[in-house]
């Protein structure tokens, strides 16, 4: 049986960690614990975390995934870091709006815009 690729790919851009989801089903409940653990490890590695999540490939999102994102946001806030979400498809963005989480997260239309926002 072939091994599955890791659910996340991490890119370094200066002091910003950019996280890409590698699979459009990645935010199914089954994968959320693994993704959350990986994000927590990234956050723990950085003194003042700057983390960007690129949602380009994400077609599905559950409330459990939202909880995982909130947990990451809370941990980054505790370390005076910055957290950005980018490239969220309209259907997925609607989930953030319905839950009012578009008010909690800094959401940007593009990765480039999100990267620039870390200088704000």
């Amino acid at each position, binding site marked *: 049986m072939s091994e599955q690729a890791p659910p996340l790919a991490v890119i370094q851009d200066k002091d910003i960690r950019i996280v890409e989801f590698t699979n459009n089903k990645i935010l199914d*409940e089954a994968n959320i614990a693994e993704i959350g653990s990986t994000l927590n490890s990234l956050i723990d590695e950085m003194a003042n975390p700057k983390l960007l999540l690129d949602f380009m490939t994400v077609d599905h*999102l559950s*409330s459990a995934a939202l909880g995982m994102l909130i947990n990451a946001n809370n941990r980054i806030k505790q370390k005076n870091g910055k957290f950005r979400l980018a490239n969220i498809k309209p259907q997925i963005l609607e989930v953030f709006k*319905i839950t*009012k989480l578009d008010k909690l997260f800094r959401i940007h239309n593009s990765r480039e815009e999100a990267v620039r926002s870390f200088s704000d």
Partner: protein
Amino acid sequence: MLKFTFKSDYAAAREVQKAILDEVDRCQFNGQCSFSIKLALEEGLINAVKHGNKLDPAKNVRVEAHVTPEQAEIVIEDEGPGFKKTEVPDPTLEENLEKCSGRGILLIEAYMDVAEWTNGGRRLRMIKKNVDESK
């Protein structure tokens, strides 16, 4: 009519979800409706397994799905103690935004045309009509 009975287990719930979504695909629901059903179905199943039955393998979840090209009607029932919907905090209030859980019911009601809880909260019946919501 699809009928399932399974122990309180996430993997079993995923199998049921897949079977129902395959039927939704066969009935050619439009993209937005398929998205809505997938989301609400996952929330309903997780609620039954995790919050209803507390992942107790001795407790079952029963699911029925009647899917036609016109609509999908799904019933999910757990064997837990039940709950009062009126006692579930509103997750969209500012004081609740940073809480990691509590959004499942909100999403089910937002994405399905009908969502009703009976039998003390143990039974969820939801309906999604296959219409183009962009028009």
